[in-house]
């Protein structure tokens, strides 16, 4: 058994046990910690097939940012109640869920095993030569950079826009205005730009106040 296979099997065990932990843990914090276990296992699996850049991103973005965001929200909301997994709000829902899960797995495995071994096949985009002029293997970071900033540059820009929209949306949805709106202090009114804006017309200020009043 080669080292690759050994690493794969150990990582697969870590990934699957972590995934089961996410689903079965009663406490959301435990679920989040099991999720970190799964994500690290996936990062190791990325390393096995020489996707070094994605492995690094997996650890930094997923384990470092997304799971921390989950934990942050869990702590913020004080969701410290455990969930009783035996309660079934919709009769038969759990059984249907297990059956559909097994059906999904069966379908996927049927598709996978109906296709011959992929290695050596041709892809839609055409396999890219991974060696440079000297016969050295080009690092995956260089290859990724070349493809993303040439063929997929528009997609790349759009994802940047998507992230911006997501951040703005999160701020708008998560902000809270408590109590009545406070008048702007007189001292602030005396200073330059703000005074100019307010002098432009009180009606725009009133519009803003009424919208924010509804939120509160």
């Amino acid at each position, binding site marked *: *058994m*080669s080292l*690759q*296979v050994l690493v*794969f099997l150990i990582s*697969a065990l870590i*990934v*699957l046990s972590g*995934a*089961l932990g*996410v*689903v079965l843990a009663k406490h*959301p914090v435990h*679920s989040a910690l099991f*999720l970190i276990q*799964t*994500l690290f296992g996936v990062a190791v*699996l990325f390393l096995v*097939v020489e*996707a070094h*850049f*994605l492995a690094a991103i997996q650890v930094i*973005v*997923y384990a470092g940012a*997304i799971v921390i*965001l*989950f934990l942050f*929200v*869990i702590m913020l*909301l004080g*969701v410290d109640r455990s*969930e009783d*997994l035996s309660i079934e*709000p919709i009769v038969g829902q759990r059984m*249907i869920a*297990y059956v*559909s*899960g*097994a059906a*999904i797995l069966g379908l*996927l495995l049927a598709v*996978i*095993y109906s296709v011959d071994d*992929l290695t050596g096949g041709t*892809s839609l*985009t055409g*396999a*890219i030569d*991974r060696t440079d002029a000297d016969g050295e293997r080009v690092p*995956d970071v260089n290859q990724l950079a070349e*493809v993303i900033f040439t063929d997929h540059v528009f*997609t790349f820009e759009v*994802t940047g826009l*998507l992230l911006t*929209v*997501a*951040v703005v949306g*999160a701020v708008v*949805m998560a902000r*809270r205005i408590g109590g009545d709106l406070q008048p702007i202090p007189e001292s602030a009114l005396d200073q330059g730009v703000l005074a100019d804006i307010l002098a432009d017309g009180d009606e725009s200020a009133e519009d803003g106040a009424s919208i924010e009043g509804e939120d509160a």
Partner: protein
Amino acid sequence: MELTATWYLVLGALLFSIGAVGLLIRRNPLVMFMCVELMLNAVNLTFVGIAWGLNDIGGQVAVFFVMVVAAAEVVIGLAIVVAIMRRRQGATADDLSVLRG
């Protein structure tokens, strides 16, 4: 025994199924989001495995974009959860049936 792309596909299928079942049986919206993350990671595994099997970097590019969209999705989803929890303490997915259009 040689490692092939098929191993990655099978592991991805298992992980995807576990995530799907978790999404269906859990009621805490936060845990449901984590199960969605599991399913996204299963797809990422499949992409990377096939990219390796076909010696084509295109699969890794797809994973890169999936990760970006997943990050955006989590940000928006958690903001919605926070907004709901403010109004109804300890809301579960079932409680959202009170929503009326």
